[in-house]
């Protein structure tokens, strides 16, 4: 059987579908940022950005950018009526004490025990940079990963143990990829759903690790 990977937009829409109204959510830099475009009009989700805002709105129109109003990716954003600004310690308190319901993060690797690697390749030549990744991974009530299932060279990002330096221990609860939605359970990875035409066995084989049905 053949299957089709989700596009980035389809993946973003899939993640958005699982976020309940009223949730406090931080969307990580890169792919997760796209989730914001897939909430229905009037559906109220509170987007937080760790540089100090809650109630983040869509990108400003061309020409209306104000670089004093940016997101964690340093891109210009807007603030919804009802939003607020606060300093960095208050902002991180929101994550670090579990006030934030969901953090959606990109990843290099997720291990079967929920370990996340997304901040550093570990290569000697790489300049390390962590930003808020560790705070988000550990602090939010639920940490979801959103990523392509395989690296560009075809390796699985689902692993038995992270080979990259980890961001947090046992912190990921759910993984959204362009091939499947997978829960991290005490027994390891468990399939929630896969794209049409892709069996759990085929996904396991592709992932080079057991994924429970």
């Amino acid at each position, binding site marked *: 059987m053949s299957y089709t990977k989700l596009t980035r937009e389809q993946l973003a829409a899939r993640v958005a579908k699982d976020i309940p109204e009223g949730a406090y959510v931080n969307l990580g830099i890169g792919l997760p940022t796209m989730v914001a475009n897939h909430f229905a009009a009037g559906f109220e989700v509170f987007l937080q950005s*760790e540089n100090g805002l809650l109630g983040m709105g869509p990108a400003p129109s061309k020409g209306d950018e*104000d670089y004093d109003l*940016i997101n964690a990716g340093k891109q210009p954003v807007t603030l919804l009526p009802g939003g607020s600004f606060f300093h*960095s310690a208050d902002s*991180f308190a929101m994550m670090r004490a579990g006030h934030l319901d969901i953090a959606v993060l990109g990843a290099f690797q997720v291990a079967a025990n929920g370990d996340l690697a997304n901040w550093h390749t570990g290569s000697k030549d790489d*300049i*390390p940079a*962590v930003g*808020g990744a560790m*705070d988000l991974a550990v602090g939010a009530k639920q940490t979801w990963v959103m990523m392509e299932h395989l690296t560009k060279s075809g390796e699985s990002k689902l692993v038995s143990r992270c080979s990259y330096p980890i961001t947090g221990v046992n912190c990921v609860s759910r993984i959204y990829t362009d091939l499947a939605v997978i829960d991290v359970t005490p027994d390891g990875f468990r399939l929630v759903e896969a794209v049409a035409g892709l069996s759990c066995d085929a996904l396991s084989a592709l992932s080079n690790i057991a994924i429970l049905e």
Partner: protein
Amino acid sequence: MISKISPSVSAALADVPHGATIMVGGFGGAGMPNELIDGLLEQGASDLTIVANNAGNAEFGLAALLKAGRVRKVICSFPRQVDSYVFDALYRAGKIDLELVPQGNLAERIRAAGAGIGGFFTQVGFGTELAKANGVAKETREINGEMYVLESPIHADVALIKAERGDRWGNLTYRMTARNFGPVMAMAAKTTIASVHELCELGEISPEHVITPGIFVQRVVKIARAVTVASGVKAS
């Protein structure tokens, strides 16, 4: 009559000593006190330790200070940016020390210094390479079934922050996300120097809306408003 208003950036920075630990506010371009950093470059203090979220962009501001060889060590969360080539080169050449700190630990450690906390336990960083100091694992502890790392406060001699409005008692407000690290850095430094775009009479800032009370600010200097420019934006 007490006035914390400095007549100029150079007057505000005149006594910054060699070897000082200097906090620099800002996240991206927002809250980055460029005029104060330029002033520090001119002032000449060297062998500095910089505490900031990033480690400079292109060749202006912090990057210019780094390029001039004035910085011994950077304590920050996110040095790697699209245009952080000055830091990157120094780091790869082993010419600058880096203490990489998760951003929330950075903010909390700075606040801890400002609040008289001798150390605190946090879950963030546990089990990672950043739960080490100089290669040695930091103290850890299990509390109510969760694992925590002991983190220490970060104090500074000087904080350079960018605010929006200020008065002669040092009360400050900020503009949108330019607030970021300013309020906690002001608490953590012996001498906090704030640039403002507007000097107010006492009471013009409502007592309900003062973000940084004057007790945390030693010097206020007015600078002309400049539009904040894009800085370190990652292509997404």
